[in-house]
Each structure stands twice: as C-alpha cells, then as structure tokens.
C-alpha cells in the first residue's frame, strides 16, 4: 500500500505480469460469421422484433434502399475518471464513489463482499459526468474496500485516463444493415434493421441499436434483429442513449437515402411516415408533438435554402449542405422514495437517494420541492448522493427527473398537509376548524383561500407546537418498466414511506392513473448546416437547430444545456471519436485524450435548442420526461446527411474524417 500517488505509480510499474499468449480475436468485421443470437438485450429486452411480412414486402416494394452502416467503439470519457475512497470502521464500510447509483453500489458491495447492506454507506455528492460509464460498477469500487480491509486504513483508488479505456466500459461497435422499402408516394412498406455488435468473452452486452426502429415510423412490415460477436475486448456498457445513438445513425441516414431515391424532401418523408401511434405495442403516445418539431426546426435553420441536388451550394471555398434527422428516446420512470422535512426556522430539506451527475438534478429538484413546499428556493435544501437516504432512481435512462420529482413533490406536499392539519386542530390558530381543502400554502404561510388575511406562517405553527421539525415521506411506485417493482423490504425506510404514502393525496393521484394504454417517448428533430472544404475533407459544422418534445421544461437553462451536451457528444461520434484496438493483440491503442479525440471549443457551431414544452400529463403530475439522452439521438445522422448534401459523398462508416471525404 503506497503512501503517495508517486509511490503507488512507481510501484505499479515494477509489477511484471506474464501471460500465456493465445491468438486474440480482435476485429468485429473480420468475425461477423461467428455472430450468434443473444437471448435478451439490456434489461431483458427482446432482441428480435417483427410484425407483418418484412422480407416479402421489402422485395416487392417499388423503391428500395438497402445499405450497411457501421459505428466504431466509443468511450464515455467523463472528465472525472472513475474513483473510489473506502474506509472501514469495524464491520462498517464507508465508500465515496464516482457512481451513477449510490443505491446500486451499496447493494453490490453488500452482495460481493458478503456483508449486510446496512453496514455499507455510499456517498456520491457530486459526480464529474457519467454518461453511462458510472452506471455499471467497475473494479475500483470493489478493490478499494478490499485493500482498505487488508491494510486497515482508508484507501483511495483513482483510475488513470489510460486505465479508463480498458477497465471501465465503452460503447460497442456496430454493423447495421437497414433495408427500407416504400411505395412511390414514400409510404414505408417494409423496414428491416439487422444489427451485429460485439461483446467480451466473459459477459454479454447487447447494444439494441434497432430499438427505435420498432416505433419511429409507421410501417406494417418490420423486422428488427440483434446479433452478437464475442471478441477479446473489455465488456461494453450503456453509453448515452445506448441503442438509439448508433441505431438512429443507421436508420436516419437510410431515410435520407430513401428520400433521395424517391425525390421527396427528407423532412417530408418523415411526415409521410409519421407514426400516429406506437404500432408495435399498439398504444397511444402519452404526448407527441413531433410534427411541430420538424416544422419549427425547418423554419429556424432555413431549410428552404437546401438544394435537393448535392454539391450545388457554395459559400466561398466551402460546399454547403443541410441535413436533418429525427431524435427519439423512451421516457422512463421508476419507483422512487423521498423524505421531506420542514424546520422550525422556516427552511426545508429533501433527502433522496439518487444523485446529480451533472445534469442539474439538484437545481431542478430544488425547484420542484420549493414549489410544493411553497417556499422560495433559497429556503430549500435538496440533499442527494447518500445511500442512507430513501431510495431514489439510478441516474441512467434519462429517468431521474421523472422518477424522483413526483415523490419529492408528494413528500413536500405531505409535510405541508401535516402542517395544515396541525393548524386546523389547534384552537389558538386563526385557521382552527376549517377544512384542509379551504386552505392553501403560499410563500412560507398558510391562509384561508377565500380570506387571505386569515393567515399563519409555518414558523408560527411549529413554534407554538414546540416542534423543531416536521417530516413526511413519500414513495411513488409508478414504473414504465413491464415488471412491477419489488415490494420494499419490511421495516426499510422505503416500506415506511410506502405506508405513509397511502394517506398522501399526491401519491394516490399519481399512482391511480391508468398508464397501461400509453407509450412514453420523447421526440425531436435536428437540423444541421455544414460547410465542407472539398479539397481537404475538413468539415465545419456551421449551425445546429434542435427542437425537442420532452414534456414540460422544468428549467430552461439546465434543459438547454443537456440537449446541447447530447448534440456535442453527437458531433464527437459523427466526426472524430473512435477507439482503435491493435489488430494483433487487441489492446486499446488510442487510449488517451490526445489520441481519442472529443470535441473542443473550436468544433462547436452556433447551436439553438427549442422546446415544444407541452406537459406529458400521463408520465407524472410534473409532466416532464427525461432529457439527458435524446439530444444525442439522430444528430450523427443529421450531420452525415448534411455532409452528403454538401458533397454528394455518402459516408456510412463513422466517424466522418477528412480521409473518407477525399478518397
């Protein structure tokens, strides 16, 4: 055990590991013939989805487009590397971990170390980005507690950037064949999307690239399949919009190719094939305003300036191109619990065992709570990232806001309701004897609705009652997942919250809603203008306009920032990022930020984000669907389509680097 970083690093370099070498199985494209059908995708998702007779319908379609699209391995590269600090006090373990799920790490450490869950305390107060990589738990999280035990002292373990490339997950490589058949009016007769991706020899991870294809456009005949090849690489894991991000590249470029064959405007082709309902599940969408997204995006970017004939628009030395694509991501929600406390000094607190990975959860939940407490935001403290808090959602699948917002709101409302009932029951209160429905809370006070002068502050009520605090808990069991959440273990904080929630009106209303006939999805449209230097193959994105339909926008700043962040991740995917493995031994070659390029300031164009901002009243009382991932879907295709429109060169293999444009 080293005392300093310098020592640790020097000592590690002295360790000589010898291997018995065997031939490595390294390339996906070289090993496609060993593809097999995995039993299930991420979280048990089906890997093959069909309706109608796709093959026959495709063969007899008037217009057909069939192409193969490939995407490389990408690494998340959150700026903060994976890191863990572990400390034991007797049997009790305290862990500070860079994780997207304090609750997940707690459970996992308890199981893997064989110690009771209540002996594990996990903190992740701030996380320097995750993008999926910190949703899985990697060696550092387990090794630090083991070393701490062995040496009986706190241990800090931080991965180097180079180690992040080999030991902490990645997005898998894909080869996707998309076949679109349409009638002469552009109506899709058949859609086929066959994905082969890769995983390691020790685990199975399926990038469900075809998942959006099952619901994005209307078609009677569909065949979406996923196969896997095992390679000598580390196991992949979810990366911002796992499935949709690479999948929409293939589908949305294919749509552009089809539009060109049909001589139909690409945006128009999307309108022609608009899915009015979720055709695979045969459900209504809870809320969908995609048509407005297309319209607004086209207007803002100046889509009418686009020339259908590629390579015909110039600005100085540059060829100019416009491209567009649809964005989509499911709206997820899972069971979550929160605790609300009003204090006698007039401030309030929320505890929730979720975490903020940089997406603005602290900010947005402060707003939700302040609203429900009827207090100014400065008086509300939201505390997250602590596994001793009531269990909140994992930060993944864009679900945090939709999942923890409702119980936070319900718990805060529950606390206020308790306060109101105290006043009603108290003969010395001016509100004594009135009904709860007749009273409302506003800015730290409760008053009679019809007689606002009949008022009392939270502080007055609590002081008179000699209370230093007033607590309420809420658990909402709503989940967009097929399986019903497991009941909370008896005696756990969640079970207590569930019990208390039976009397909580907000929870009851939320849970009562019948959601089974609805499909929950966010939508959007990206419009991109690029400038291409045709001689040097250099691409300059000039402008991106994104219009997003994500339900209620809870905070315009954080929402805009999230969408822009997704788009910029997409710029990286489209134009520069890719992880290269040595073709001989399969080790990562491009294992640092000088060789694995991510976008820098100078790559960023003028980006405009617009929102439809129509509440989704079915997902939750708050009306917001998640936003962390939709921004990255479709954007790579919009860029690729714009490059094609500028140059007439169709690059179906990401990233689109200068060498591919000049060849």
């Amino acid at each position, binding site marked *: 055990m080293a005392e300093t970083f*310098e020592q640790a*690093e020097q000592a590690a370099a002295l360790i000589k590991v010898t291997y018995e070498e065997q031939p490595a199985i390294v390339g996906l494209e070289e090993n496609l013939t060993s593809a097999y059908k995995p039993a299930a995708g991420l979280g048990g998702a089906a890997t093959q989805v069909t309706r109608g007779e796709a093959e026959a319908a495709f063969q007899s379609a008037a217009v057909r487009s069939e192409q193969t699209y490939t995407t490389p391995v990408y690494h998340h590269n959150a700026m903060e590397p994976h890191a863990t600090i572990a400390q034991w006090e007797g049997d009790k373990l305290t862990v500070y971990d860079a994780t997207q799920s304090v609750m997940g790490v707690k459970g996992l450490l308890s199981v893997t170390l064989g110690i009771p869950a209540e002996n594990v305390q996990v903190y992740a107060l701030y996380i320097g980005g995750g993008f999926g990589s910190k949703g899985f738990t990697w060696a550092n999280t387990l090794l630090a507690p083991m070393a701490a035990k062995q040496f009986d002292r706190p241990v800090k373990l931080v991965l180097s950037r180079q180690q992040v490339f080999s030991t902490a997950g990645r997005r898998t490589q894909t080869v996707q064949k998309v076949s679109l058949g349409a009638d002469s009016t552009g109506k899709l007769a058949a859609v086929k999307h066959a994905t082969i991706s890769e995983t390691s020899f020790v685990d199975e991870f399926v990038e469900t690239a075809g998942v959006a294809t099952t619901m994005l456009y209307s078609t009677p005949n569909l065949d979406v399949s996923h196969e896997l090849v095992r390679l000598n690489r580390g196991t992949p894991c979810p990366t911002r919009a796992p499935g949709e991000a690479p999948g929409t590249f293939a589908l949305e470029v294919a749509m552009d190719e089809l539009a060109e064959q049909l001589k139909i405007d690409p945006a128009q082709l999307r309108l022609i094939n608009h899915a009015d309902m979720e055709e695979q599940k045969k459900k209504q969408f809870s809320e969908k305003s995609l048509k407005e997204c297309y319209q607004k995006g086209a207007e803002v970017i100046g889509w009418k300036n686009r020339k259908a004939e590629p390579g015909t628009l110039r600005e100085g030395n540059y060829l100019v191109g416009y491209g567009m694509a649809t964005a989509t991501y499911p709206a997820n929600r899972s069971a979550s619990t929160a605790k609300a406390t009003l204090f006698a000094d007039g401030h309030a607190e929320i505890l929730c065992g979720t975490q903020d990975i940089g997406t603005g959860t602290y900010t947005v939940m402060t707003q939700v709570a302040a609203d429900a407490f009827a207090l100014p935001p400065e008086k509300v403290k939201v505390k997250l990232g602590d596994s001793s808090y009531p269990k909140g959602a994992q930060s993944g699948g864009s679900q945090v806001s939709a999942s923890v917002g409702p119980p936070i709101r319900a718990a805060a409302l529950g606390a206020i309701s308790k306060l109101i009932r105290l006043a009603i029951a108290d003969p010395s209160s001016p509100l004594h004897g009135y009904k709860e429905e007749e009273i409302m809370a506003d800015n730290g006070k409760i008053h009679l609705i019809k007689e606002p002068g009949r008022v009392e502050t939270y502080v007055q009520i609590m002081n008179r009652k000699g209370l230093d605090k007033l607590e309420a808990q809420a658990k909402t069991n709503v989940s967009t997942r097929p399986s019903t959440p497991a009941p909370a273990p008896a005696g756990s904080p969640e079970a207590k919250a569930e019990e208390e929630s039976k009397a909580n009106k907000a929870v009851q209303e939320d849970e009562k809603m019948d959601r089974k006939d609805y499909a929950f999805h966010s939508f959007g449209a990206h419009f991109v203008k690029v400038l291409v230097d045709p001689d*040097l*193959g250099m691409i300059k994105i000039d402008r991106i306009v994104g219009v997003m339909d994500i339900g209620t926008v809870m905070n315009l700043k954080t929402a805009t920032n999230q969408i822009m962040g997704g788009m910029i991740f997409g710029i990286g995917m489209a*134009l520069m990022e890719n992880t*290269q493995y040595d073709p001989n031994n399969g080790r990562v*070659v491009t294992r640092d930020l*000088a*060789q694995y390029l991510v976008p820098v300031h100078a790559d960023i164009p003028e980006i405009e984000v617009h929102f439809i901002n129509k509440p989704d009243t079915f997902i939750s009382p708050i009306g917001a669907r998640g936003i962390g991932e939709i921004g990255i879907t479709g954007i790579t295709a919009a860029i690729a389509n714009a490059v094609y429109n500028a140059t007439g060169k169709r690059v179906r293999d990401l990233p689109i680097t*200068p060498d591919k444009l000049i060849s």
Partner: protein
Amino acid sequence: MEPFKLIRVHDNQAAIRTALMAGSRFIAGGTNLIDLMKLHIETPKQVVDINKLPFSGIEELPDGGLRIGALVKNSDLAYHPVVIKKYPVLSEALLSGASPQLRNMASVGGNLMQRTRCPYFYNTDFACNKRNPGSGCAALTGYNRMNAVLGTSDHCIATHPSDMCVALAALDATIHVQGTKGSRLIPFGEFHRLPGQTPHVEHSLLPGELITHVDIPGMSYSYRSHYLKVRDRASYEFALTSAAVLLDIRGGRIQKADIALGGVGTKPWRAVPAEKVLNGASADLQTYRAAAEAALSQAKSYKDNAYKIELAKRTLVRALTTAAAIS
C-alpha cells in the same frame, strides 16, 4: 515516474557538466519530458532545470533575420510582432500546435527536441524500436493511420510531431548549440535524423550539448508565407498533414520557393523535389499540382495511412495557392 534528482542550474557550463552525467535530461517547459516520464518512457536520474539560463530573448539580426533563445515560450514567439509581420508561417505553425496553456509552457528548444506521438511509442506494453531498440515496431502491422509516409524504414515509421519545426525547416533555420568543446552551429536539415536502423537516435546533439538559440535568416519575401494544418478536429490536435510554404514571386514567376511538410515525414520534411518544380515556374495551379506530385513521389504508405499521400498533396496545393495570394 522513476525518482530523479531535480537540479537547478544558473549557468551554461554547469548545465552542460550536469547533463554529461549518465541519465541526465534537460528540462525546459517539461510538457514533453514530464509526459514521457509519467509513462516510464523517459527515466532520467537527473533532471536539469535550465529555465534560469539566459536564453529567453528574441533579437533582430543584422541581415534582417531573428535570433530566438531556446527558452522562448512558444506563445511568446508566435505573438512576437516581428514574427507575425515577417514570418507568418512561423507564427501560424506555432499557433496551430497544442493549446494556449501548453504553448505558454513549451520552449523553442523543447519543441525542437519533442519526441514522436506514435501510439505504440507511448505504450510500454508494445514493441517499439525507438523506445526499446531491437524490440520491433508494433506500428508496422498495427494501427498506423497517424504514421509517416516519407523517410520511413523497416524499423520505424513514426511521424515527427512538431508544427514549429516544419516552419523552421522551410525557413532554413540554424541551431546554435553549446557543449563541453564550445559552441557550434547545426543547419536545420541536419538536426533531426531519419530512423534508418537506429530510430532511437533522433537528433545530432552530442552528449551534454545544450541548444541555446535558433537563427532564422532575413528574407525579402518571407511575409509571403503560410502554414496550413489539416486534422480531424478543429484544434488541439497533431497534424494529419501540414505544409509550410514561402514564395518569392515576381511578375507571376516563382523566383524561389521554400517548402516543408508535416504529419507525413519521420522528420520535419523539407520538400526539395517540390521546390525544384516551383523554382522558375509560373505561379499557377498547374505548377502547384506538379510540385505536390513531386513532393510525394517517394512516399510509401502502410495499412491505414495511404490517404496521407493524397491529403498531403492537396494540403500543399492549398498552402501554395493561399501564400501566392498574399501581397
């Protein structure tokens, strides 16, 4: 990093004496040396801090040229008013390299001496003749999209990474060095070595020798010069290809052209065959294309880098076109 003694020196002779001890390295900005020490690629026993030596000035020479101290920071050189006005090729090359922070640290001497960015050189898990002579070259059959197409050998195909050096090659710079036996001058073209059978021998400094200055000559036409760098992202990346060009054009004819290429050679690549085509020819696109063909006529590509040959030609043609338009 391996432990080392950090020795701060205040005069040249002390620096040279200390550097003669086995396992010594000078350190200036540290942006390359520390990087490599962290990866156990450089393992000096003594690190000699030369930042207090008196080589951080830029002086104008009687012939109109410049004498640049080896410790001048890359950013200070790039923004020096004389460099901006008289040697845009040098300023542009410097500003296209690394990042503002790194340019604030990096010195001219260190930039001349910076080592390749070949990914296999940077990773001690792989064979590399440059890092570990005789161990083989993993890049030859590995991922070699960024590697060189000019000046390669069967022992090493690593690109020289510097932008500044490409401009200095075109500018015919002279390097002043000081050693135990006094000072000497090294013409720029003789400073960096081709890999041949000894890719670990990268330059022609003798043990202990210290770079003190770099001279660039006065040239009547050096204002008509340009550096163009092509890369995968807009900034903060090494070159796929680059070109430094200076043109003396009179009455539509090229009197003299000075051309060097980056990103393609195992050393900063002076393109003499291109100069031969250009000298005396008319300044037009056809000439530039012919020059580009000549510049790359000896190129040899590997598995992933054939594109560099075409891209380098186009880079040179564009750089020439741009420079010719400067008045």
